[in-house]
């Protein structure tokens, strides 16, 4: 599983690179830095919905839908390939259990699993305003569990990856808005979500 996912990320990057070479002589994409600058540090902010897509234990009726937020800081140069970092927050899933039997008696219990991604991201515009993104790194996965009236929070790092496709248009000076469809995979814990987010990006710094 992990091998195939890593391969998928590699293939997306390779395909994007090859495509980028093929279109190297085409007009500059709209998301490139302004012509009077050679580089820009572009901040992207996004928010939207998440859906947990990995199989889960059938005994638990998990709530798969949630919210997700992201920010990405990406270095844009005259090259098509861009590199940056991404973080944010996403819900993986949550569930409630009623009247669980334990050796201490019965209890209602609930758990929320969320994650903060910490990813190195590589992006490349492929068709006009369409950009592919692929990232590697991991997730700080947080269990927030309550039973017998006591809550515990435990955070562990899980290796993982991401892949995304975004589309955006310029709306005001160098600010662009659009949408992003994304997969976050915390493969070490076999967790994964698909996210659909609205995004806004603008250069934070240009030189």
């Amino acid at each position, binding site marked *: 599983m992990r091998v195939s996912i890593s391969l998928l990320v590699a293939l997306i990057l390779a395909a994007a690179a090859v495509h980028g070479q093929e279109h190297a002589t085409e007009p500059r994409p709209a998301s490139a830095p302004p012509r009077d600058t050679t580089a820009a540090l572009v901040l992207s902010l996004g928010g939207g919905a998440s859906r947990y897509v990995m199989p889960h234990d059938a005994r638990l009726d998990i709530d798969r839908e949630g919210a997700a937020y992201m920010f990405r800081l990406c270095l844009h140069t005259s090259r098509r390939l861009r590199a940056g970092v991404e973080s944010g927050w996403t819900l*993986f899933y949550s569930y409630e259990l009623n009247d669980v039997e334990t050796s201490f008696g019965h209890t209602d219990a609930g758990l929320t699993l969320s994650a903060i991604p910490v990813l190195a991201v590589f992006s490349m515009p492929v068709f006009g305003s369409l950009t592919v993104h692929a990232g590697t790194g991991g997730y700080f996965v947080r*269990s927030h569990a309550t039973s017998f009236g*006591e809550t515990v929070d435990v955070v562990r790092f899980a290796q993982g990856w991401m892949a995304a496709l975004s589309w955006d248009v310029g709306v005001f000076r160098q600010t662009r808005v659009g949408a992003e469809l994304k997969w976050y995979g915390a493969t070490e814990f076999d967790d994964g979500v698909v996210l659909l987010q609205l995004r806004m990006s603008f250069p934070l710094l240009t030189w």
Partner: protein
Amino acid sequence: MMSPGAPRVPSTRWGIGGVRWHPGRLLLLVLLLQLSCNEEVVLPVPAIDVAAELAGTRALPPAVLTAMEGVYEVIDGQALLGREAVVKHTGSGLSIFTDRDAGVVMLECGIADSAIIVVGTWRKLTGTETGVFRASISELHGAARLLAGGTAEAGAVTVLGDFGNATGKGMRPLQLVYRRPLYHGPRPFLVIAHRAGGRNSDHLPASENTAELVRMAERFGANGVEIDVQVTRDGVPVVYHDETLNLRLTQKSGLVGSISDYTLAQIESFVRLKNGERIPTLRRMLGTILRQTTLRFVWLDSKYTVPVALLRDLQRAYVDSARHFNRDLTIVIGLPDAEKVDQLLRIPDYEDATVLCELDVETVRRTHAEIWAPRWTMGTQNALVAAMHAEGRLVLSWTLDNAEYIQQFLRDGDVDGILSNYPSLVAYYHFVQ
């Protein structure tokens, strides 16, 4: 071929290393990779109702089950049992051990008229193969002799029957003839099941390190078990092997981290092992071993944060209970590293604790360990084993799963027991010596 200077034709295909990839083919490749990496083991359950098949039979006295023990020649059924099979009284019935794919047959027995009926299931512990097994010993083929209190003699006991696959179909004939008694050696030999039952747990409806599996350990040929002990955040010792709550051992629960991050109440509220069991407390495991098995050896492998002093207290309590129930049960605390050794040496009366040390012989002596347990890769180490024996200590080897090496240790070595994921294989090679 494109001529130099010819305009490039936009392509919807991607190239890597000269190979052109259509997006559809790329997707197919990814799907194939995905499918090839997802292994789903289907665990067949043999279609046999042992209780129903033995309905109307009378219970077989334990003495008769013991009298049936021996090494049997396999006349028919070598595909399942090889050329020789070990028949052993285990639990409430019989087990048959074979070296063929670490096979084991677990049988319940009854008396119908003057015949001994044996019914059960076979399983190859190296895979998921399993099936049904039905046989009997007729009055003329030795049942009269055995039921009259006699012992088996070469050629005097013949088991006839058949065996088939998990659906009970494709039945093939079976014939076993008693040839010789089991080898028992100059001193008792320990066959210790790793993680309360060994790798069998992968293919059985019981998770490793559980009370459910420990009840099966004897049927797999073990007379001892090794279990892994950790401690919860509120200080309760529980039986669990890995450092983290993970998908190898548990159903997906959403709890990340380790056992020591959570209280027992939290673990019981959320976590279920692979086959649906709760993570057992050490008290529950020891209680099960004491009251529901005849196992005579328990190796408490002290993991991660579990304090040795806590194990010492429980060891003392359950050794007292075993004495109260007149049970021959030895419970030893395993010392796998220097940290656990230091913890032991800080206990005021540590010399009284029964300890197994996995480190060098000098540490064995320093800790007053009754048992030295070197890793099998160190070899048979006969000179050191002899020295340990001369000092009154036992020597166990761990974790031996390979048939060739098990035979080598039994033939060339002088250890007092072997820890294995395939206890039936160790039992087979020990008893056929």
